[in-house]
């Protein structure tokens, strides 16, 4: 293994060029990943601030902190920021952007300038969105249900919709880049069956980005047309149909939850194998489960509409298909667990986050079964049960995976180690804080507390106070990494090329990697996660 001193001194993507222009005009996928990291971190804190205001307001049944209108804006903007500006780009645009070309042995993504364009498009969308929020905000919920959004809301609906519309194109461009890169840019010998599972799951997510995102763009455009021009599409008073909006919206927004979770699943596959020092159990099944989720995910949208007034037979079909999409997710969980069997397990921070992911994603997934069950969904639909369910999947699952991935690849990205002790503490705080925040919401939901309530009957108070207390623990759990990651940039131990002794091409190049990733195009002769045969020390590229 190369010594730390050597790796820090050689030319890499961070020290090859200095100055603001070298960053803003870069076409290096690694630098663009850093631009995305800074941007989505800012969005995460804005969305998190809204979340904290929501939780503080719900400390008392009468909701004394903010007015009803302000509260409605807070949860709307929390949802919009977190879904469209944090969760969707998080793993793909930051971690995927950085490691996919490294993993497949390429010098960059297929279209480096399109990659930079996607970041500018994202920034434009984010600026429009934030302008709409600063100048008055939006109160439609992130779901923009009609005819409320098109006729009755007095807030900046068109501005907020425009921000999402624009950001959608950055998602399409990223997806396109991933698909082409994974098809065309794999190193010699990197066959589909040797492809790391992180690439498989990002590939599946990219398919949804490219095929699904245009639908939300069209839908939001129609909202703007009805609101701005009074052309009847969704409002029955103008001859429209409000359910049409819900069909169009969920046709994208359900697959979108798989855009968010699939890349996270890829991170977990990488980490569980690495810290168990084992090949993944059932590689083909884990890889194909990603594709199955992407395909089936397009066929379940109306399970958001079981009480909306759709036909009972339509509900029957969508309920059945919703169970089917749960199966590939279950297959992944079983395979990750089986991967640990007879492994050689270490508990570094990424693995702790992966444990958290598997546990919380299992709970999030199983409560999804409750929602797919028609008779139960009628009772828990639009209650805090649903809020808890998707936070278990999106925060307990996806954000855990994102944190796991950040810690796992941080040494590769920055060339510095993070402080392990603090990181373990933060993983623990996130796990405890998360469960304290969201588990009570399952109980609240079954008791009947509807979501999006600024004030609530007093019997729900104890559980709401508990939830708010948990949210403050969770907040500390997220602030800590922010501090020690920044600290590590200057004071962290220099990272060796392969601190985890992992397999995968990204670990065979120095940390941080040189601008062109590999001095020589690697030739792959081994399978993914071949912890048995691959002679770590001997296979180094760029002798």
């Amino acid at each position, binding site marked *: 293994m190369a010594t730390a001193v050597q790796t820090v001194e050689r030319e890499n993507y961070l020290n090859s060029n200095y100055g603001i222009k070298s960053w803003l005009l870069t076409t290096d996928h690694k630098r663009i990943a850093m631009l995305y990291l800074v941007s989505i971190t800012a969005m995460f804190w804005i969305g998190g601030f809204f979340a904290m205001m929501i939780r503080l307001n719900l400390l008392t049944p009468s909701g004394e902190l903010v007015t009803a209108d302000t509260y409605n804006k807070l949860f709307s903007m929390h949802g919009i920021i977190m879904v469209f500006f944090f969760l969707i780009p998080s793993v793909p645009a930051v971690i995927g952007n950085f490691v996919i070309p490294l993993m497949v042995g390429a010098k960059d993504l297929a279209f480096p300038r399109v990659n930079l364009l996607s970041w500018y498009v994202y920034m434009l969308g984010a600026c429009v969105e934030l302008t709409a929020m600063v100048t008055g905000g939006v109160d439609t919920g992130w*779901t923009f249900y009609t005819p*409320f959004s098109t006729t*009755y809301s007095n807030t900046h609906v068109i501005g907020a919709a425009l921000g999402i519309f624009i950001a959608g194109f950055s998602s399409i461009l990223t997806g396109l880049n991933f698909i082409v890169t994974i098809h065309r840019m794999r190193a010699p010998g990197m066959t589909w069956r040797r492809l790391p599972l992180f690439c498989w799951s990002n590939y599946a997510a990219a398919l949804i980005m490219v095929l699904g995102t245009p639908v939300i763009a069209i839908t939001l455009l129609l909202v703007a047309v009805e609101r701005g021009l009074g052309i009847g599409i969704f409002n029955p008073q103008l001859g429209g149909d409000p359910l049409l909006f819900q069909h169009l919206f969920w046709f994208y927004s359900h697959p979108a939850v798989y855009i968010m979770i699939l890349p996270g699943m890829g991170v977990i596959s990488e980490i569980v194998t690495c810290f168990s020092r084992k090949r993944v159990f059932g590689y083909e099944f884990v890889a194909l489960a990603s594709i199955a989720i992407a395909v089936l995910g397009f066929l379940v949208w109306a399970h958001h509409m079981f009480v909306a007034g759709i036909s009972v037979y339509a509900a029957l079909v969508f309920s059945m298909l919703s169970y089917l999409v749960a199966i590939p997710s279950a297959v992944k969980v079983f395979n990750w667990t089986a991967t640990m*069997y007879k*492994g050689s397990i270490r508990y570094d921070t990424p693995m702790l986050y992966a444990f958290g992911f598997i546990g919380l994603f299992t709970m999030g997934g199983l409560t999804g079964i409750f929602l797919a069950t028609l*008779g139960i969904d009628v009772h828990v639909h639009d209650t805090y049960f649903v809020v808890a369910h998707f936070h278990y999947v999106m925060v307990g699952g996806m954000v855990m995976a994102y944190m796991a991935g950040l810690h796992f690849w941080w040494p590769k990205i920055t060339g510095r180690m993070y402080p392990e002790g603090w990181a373990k503490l933060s993983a623990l705080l996130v796990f405890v804080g998360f469960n304290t925040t969201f588990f009570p919401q399952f109980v609240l939901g079954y008791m009947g507390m509807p979501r999006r309530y600024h004030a609530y009957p007093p019997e729900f108070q104890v559980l709401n106070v508990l939830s708010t207390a948990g949210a403050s623990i969770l907040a500390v759990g997220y602030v800590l990494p922010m501090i020690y990651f920044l600290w590590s940039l200057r004071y962290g131990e220099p990272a060796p090329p392969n601190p985890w002794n992992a397999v995968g091409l990204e670990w065979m190049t120095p940390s941080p990697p040189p601008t062109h990733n590999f001095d020589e195009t690697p030739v792959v002769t081994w399978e993914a996660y071949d912890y048995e045969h691959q002679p770590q020390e001997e296979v180094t590229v760029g002798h």
Partner: protein
Amino acid sequence: MWINFPLFPQRASAMAWQVDGLFFLLLAVSGFFTLLIFVLIFVFSVKYRRSVHPHPVQIEGSLPLEMAWTLIPLGICMIFFAWGSLIYFQEARPPQDAMQIWVVGKQWMWKFEHETGQREIDQLHIPVNRDVKLVMSSQDVVHSFFVPAFRIKQDVLPGRYTQTWFRATKVGSYQLFCSQYCGTNHSQMIGEIIVMDPMAYQAWLGLGGASGSLPANGRQVFQQMGCASCHRSHGQGTGPDLAGMFGKPVQLSDGRTVVADEDYVRNAILNPGAQTVAGYKPIMPSFQGQVSEDNLDALVAYIKSLAQPQPNATSQMQ
């Protein structure tokens, strides 16, 4: 805040027991699988930690295991699918002889109208152990009628009727929530369902407040709006005879046959051209925007009442 601290909703309808039964079974099954995963992860991570198990054993996978953990969960899911669907179908089909309440949702209140003419706001009095069917529409945005103690919920839409039903089994007062976000005071759009024993309910009905039954009010609207000039009995008018029509199949001019339910009648008033009855010209004007949500309910209730042979009613039409 600590005195009143329930962890489970009240159970006050026939449906509540069924929903809870399925819920607890699913909770048990999910609990089992969650525990299984947690225990396996814990056991593996302790037993195979690097300090005691430095040399991993490489395993490619196992087709029988993959099959098992695909097919067994799928089989279990199908049981819940079937059971959940049975409950849903019951919820979607109100019994024929149910007592009917007309519900109008608007920002931010619930309006109820009984067949006997009583009107209420944010309160609904109903007798215990009686099937109650709700025919609901919204005056503005989408709302949702949610009574946790009955385990029922149904969105209330502008522009059409949706239905749900329940049979309250315990006397008492139960919370009604709007569960579909509907604007500023969404969280204030709450009310109560007051379930009374039949004697008390009769007494409540006798308190007055009713200005004629709902169908009778509908008949007045029918005459005020001039409906009777075309819709005469025995096929003498330019419009179809409405007596005995409700609840029966209607042959449409485009060849389809539909059942004349509440939603059909409502559409026929607001958008007559869409579903013209076979043999009649599409000459009826739309009454969209000319008839209030309440009067629309009254009209539909009146036309529905014409389905029963009532010599009085048919003669009144002319």
